[in-house]
C-alpha cells in the first residue's frame, strides 16, 4: 500500500510522474526502476506526460452511449479544441449512470452537458447530488444514536460462541455476495474464520466499476454506518485487527463521507485501540484505487494492496486462505457488509422472508438505460423484471421493452419476453443470464443490440490487464471484427469464429473478466435472430 500511496501523492502534487520523479523515488525507497515503471504504466491515475491544466473525462460505456455519449464527447472536443488548458479524453464507466451521459471535470465534478462542463471549468460546479436509494429498508436503526448497536451487543454480550452464532445467522439468511459472484456469505466467513494462520485480514471491495453499476456508491454515501458496522462485525468474527476499504478513485464524495464516518466510529469506541474489548484493537482505513475495473477482481485488488501491478492471481488458493500478504482474508462487497447489521438484528429467517417468489432477502438494484426514473431501488429479491421497470417509472418515452441486461456488462441481454423472470441468482441463470452485481439496464425498441453488446465487449477489452493470452489478444481481435461487422463488413465464418473465441476465453482465461468478455456478444447472437442474421448465421442458429 505504501509505495502506491506514495506514487499517488506524487501524482497529486506534480500532476504527472516524470522519469526524474521516479528515479528520485527509486533512490529514496531502494525500489528498482523497472518496478516503478510497471506500476506507472499500469494504473490509469498515473500520467506519464505533464498534461493540460484541466481534464475532462467522458464516459464511453454502454449506458452513457445509449444517452448520446459519442456526440457529447465530439461536442466537447470541438468546443474545447482551441483551449490548450483543457484535455478531453474518453474513459470507462464512471459509476454515475443515472445521470448519463456523464463527464468528470478535473476528476471531481460530474457534468451531463456542455453547459455544466463549462461551469465546472469556471469553478462554478454544481454541488454533488447525493443519490438516495428508493425504498431503502436495510437500516435497523431508528436514529443515529443507535448506530453500531448490533456490534456493541455482540461484543459486550461476549461469549466467544457469539462469533459462530453470527456465521450461523448469515448462513440461515441465505445472503450471497452482492459484488457479482453470489458466493454464500456465511460460508465465506466460516472459511476465513477457520483458515490456518493470522492475523486475519479484512477488506471491503468498494471498487464497483462495471458499466451500469452504481448501487455501492449510493450505499456508501447514504448508509456508510451499515457498511462499516458490517466490516467491524466481520473483523470481530474472523478476529482481524485491521480492515481496508478499497475504493475506486472516481468516488471522491464517498471517500470523504466514509472517512468522516470512520472518525465518528472511533469516537464511539467501535474502532480504535479497545474496539474489540480492553486492549483488543481494530481499525480501518480507506485505500484509494489507482484505477482500472480489473482491480475489482478480488485477487487483482490484493495485488494492488501489495504494491504490484493489479493482475489477477491464478486460483486456487483463494483469498479466504491465502489473501493479503499471504494471510487469510475476508473480502466482501459494500452491499454485502451493509446487510449484516439488519440480518443480525432481525435474524436470518426474517431476512429470508423479505424476498418474494421463494428468493431470500433484499437487493439494491442500480437501474439505468431506457427507464423513466433511473436510480437505485431496494427491492425484495425475487421481484420480477417487469415490476422493477415499473418501479423505475416504466420504459422511457412510453416505448416498448426490447431487451434487458439484468446485472452488469457481463450479464447477457435477455429478450423482453423474459421480463417475468425474478431478480435472483438462480432464476437469472436459468433464464440464460445472471444477476451479477445488480446493474440493471433496460433497452427499448429501436436500439441496436449488436452495437450495445459490442460496447460491452469493448469495455472488457479496454479494461483487460493483459496478463493472459486469451483475454489480452482474444478480446482485441473480437472487438476489431465486431466493429467491422457494424460497418457492414462481415467476413465468411465470422459468427462461428466469435463463438470459438468466446469458448476459448471462457475456458482458458485466468479471471472472470476474460471469461465473460465475449459472452454479451454471443448472447445477442443466440437470443436475437436479427443480430444473428447480420453476422451471417442462420436464423435458427
Amino acid at each position: 500500500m505504501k509505495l502506491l500511496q506514495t506514487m499517488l501523492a506524487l501524482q497529486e502534487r506534480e500532476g504527472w510522474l516524470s522519469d526524474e520523479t521516479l528515479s528520485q523515488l527509486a533512490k529514496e525507497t531502494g525500489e528498482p526502476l523497472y518496478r516503478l515503471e510497471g506500476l506507472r504504466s499500469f494504473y490509469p491515475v498515473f500520467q506519464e506526460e505533464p498534461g493540460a491544466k484541466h481534464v475532462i473525462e467522458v464516459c464511453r460505456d454502454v449506458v452513457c452511449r445509449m444517452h448520446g455519449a459519442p456526440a457529447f464527447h465530439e461536442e466537447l472536443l470541438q468546443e474545447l479544441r482551441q483551449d490548450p488548458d483543457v484535455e478531453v479524453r474518453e474513459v470507462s464507466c464512471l459509476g454515475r449512470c443515472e445521470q448519463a451521459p456523464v463527464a468528470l471535470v478535473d476528476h471531481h465534478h460530474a457534468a451531463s452537458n456542455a453547459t455544466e462542463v463549462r461551469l465546472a471549468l469556471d469553478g462554478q460546479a454544481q454541488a454533488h447530488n447525493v443519490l438516495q436509494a428508493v425504498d431503502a429498508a436495510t437500516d435497523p436503526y431508528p436514529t443515529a444514536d443507535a448506530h453500531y448497536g448490533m456490534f456493541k451487543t455482540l461484543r459486550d454480550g461476549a461469549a466467544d460462541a457469539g462469533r459462530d452464532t453470527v456465521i450461523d445467522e448469515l448462513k440461515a439468511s441465505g445472503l450471497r455476495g452482492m459484488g457479482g459472484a453470489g458466493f454464500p456469505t456465511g460460508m465465506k466467513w466460516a472459511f476465513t474464520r477457520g483458515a490456518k494462520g493470522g492475523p486475519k485480514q479484512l477488506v471491503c471491495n468498494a471498487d464497483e466499476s462495471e458499466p451500469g453499476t452504481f448501487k455501492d456508491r449510493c450505499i456508501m454515501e447514504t448508509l456508510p454506518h451499515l457498511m462499516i458496522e458490517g466490516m467491524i462485525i466481520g473483523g470481530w468474527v474472523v478476529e482481524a485487527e485491521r480492515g481496508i476499504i478499497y475504493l475506486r478513485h472516481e468516488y471522491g464524495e464517498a471517500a470523504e463521507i466514509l472517512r468522516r464516518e470512520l472518525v465518528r466510529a472511533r469516537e464511539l469506541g467501535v474502532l480504535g485501540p479497545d474496539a474489540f474489548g480492553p486492549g483488543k484493537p481494530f481499525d480501518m482505513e480507506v485505500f484509494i484505487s489507482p484505477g482500472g475495473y480489473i482491480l475489482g477482481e478480488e485477487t487483482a485488488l490484493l495485488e494492488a494492496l501489495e504494491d504490484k501491478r493489479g493482475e489477477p492471481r491464478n486460483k486456487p488458493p483463494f483469498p479466504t486462505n491465502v489473501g493479503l500478504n499471504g494471510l487469510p482474508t475476508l473480502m466482501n462487497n459494500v452491499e454485502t457488509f451493509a446487510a449484516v447489521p439488519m440480518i443480525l438484528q432481525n435474524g436470518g429467517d426474517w431476512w429470508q422472508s423479505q424476498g418474494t417468489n421463494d428468493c431470500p432477502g433484499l437487493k439494491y438494484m442500480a437501474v439505468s438505460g431506457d427507464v423513466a426514473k433511473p436510480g437505485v431501488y431496494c427491492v425484495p429479491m425475487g421481484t420480477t423484471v417487469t415490476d422493477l421497470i415499473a418501479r423505475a417509472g416504466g420504459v422511457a418515452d412510453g416505448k416498448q421493452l426490447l431487451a434487458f441486461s439484468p446485472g452488469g456488462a457481463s450479464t447477457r441481454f435477455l429478450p423482453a419476453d423474459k421480463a417475468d423472470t425474478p431478480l435472483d441468482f438462480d432464476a437469472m441463470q436459468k433464464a440464460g443470464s445472471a444477476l451479477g452485481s445488480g446493474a440493471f439496464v433496460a433497452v427499448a425498441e429501436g436500439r441496436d443490440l449488436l452495437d450495445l453488446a459490442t460496447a460491452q465487449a469493448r469495455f472488457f477489452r479496454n479494461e483487460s490487464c493483459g496478463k493472459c493470452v486469451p483475454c489480452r489478444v482474444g478480446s482485441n481481435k473480437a472487438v476489431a471484427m465486431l466493429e467491422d461487422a457494424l460497418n457492414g463488413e462481415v467476413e465468411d465464418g465470422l459468427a462461428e469464429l466469435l463463438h470459438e473465441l468466446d469458448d476459448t476465453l471462457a475456458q482458458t482465461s485466468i479471471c472472470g473478466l476474460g471469461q465473460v468478455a465475449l459472452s454479451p456478444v454471443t448472447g445477442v447472437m443466440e437470443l436475437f435472430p436479427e443480430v444473428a442474421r447480420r453476422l451471417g448465421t442462420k436464423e435458427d442458429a
Partner: protein
Amino acid sequence: MSNDTVKLTIDGQATEVPAGTSIWDAARELGIDIPVLCHSTRMRPVGVCRMCVVDTGARNLQASCVRPCEDGMEVDTRSEKVEKHRRMLLEMLLADYPEDSARDAATGDDELLNMARDYGITEVRLRDGASGRPQGVDLSSPVIAVDHQACILCDRCVRGCNELQHNDVITRSGKGYGTRIAFDLNTPMGESTCVSCGECMAVCPTGALTNRALADLKLEPLGSD
C-alpha cells in the same frame, strides 16, 4: 504436512505425488509432456500463456503449471476439447507474430513456431496485427536484439532478469493489448542498466530477444571515446 501426498490419474495413469505438486510437474514425472510457452523448469510458474491448460472436470480448463494436484483428480491433458483451445491460443499468438523470427532463422528453436508446426496450424483466421511491426524493434543494445512484435509476454525474461539473475531491469509496461516488455523506466535496452548477461535472451522462447552478430561490433579499450 510435508509428508502428505495426493493420488490422482493423468491420462489414465495413476500416480501419487507430494501435496502441492503442480499437474504439469506430476505429468512430466510420468513422461507426459504438456505443451507450454511461459513455463520453464528453472522458474517460478506464472500461468500466463495458458497453453498448458488441462481438463480436470472443473467448470473451466486449468493451467497445469500453476494448478496443484488434488486427491482423486482425473486429468486429461490431450482431449479434443483441450487441443481445440490450444489451437485457438496459438492462432491468437500467430496473428500478431512477425513473418520472420530471428530465432527461427538463426537457431531454429523458436518455441512458438515449432509448436504451431506440431499442431499443424497453417491458417490464422484472426486479423493480422503484425504487419509493419507496430510494437517496434529495439537495436540499441550491441549484443541483444529486441523485437517487440515477436514478444508473447510469457514473462520468462522478466523472471530471468529479476528472479534468476537479480539484475532488476525488465518489466511488463502498459496494460491490456498494449502491454510490452520494457527496461528500467521504459528506456531503450542499450541505455538501460542492463549488464548484457544474456539470461533474458537465453530463456526467451520466441524471436523477441536474440543474439546480435558480433562480427561488426567495434571493441574499444576502456577510457577511449
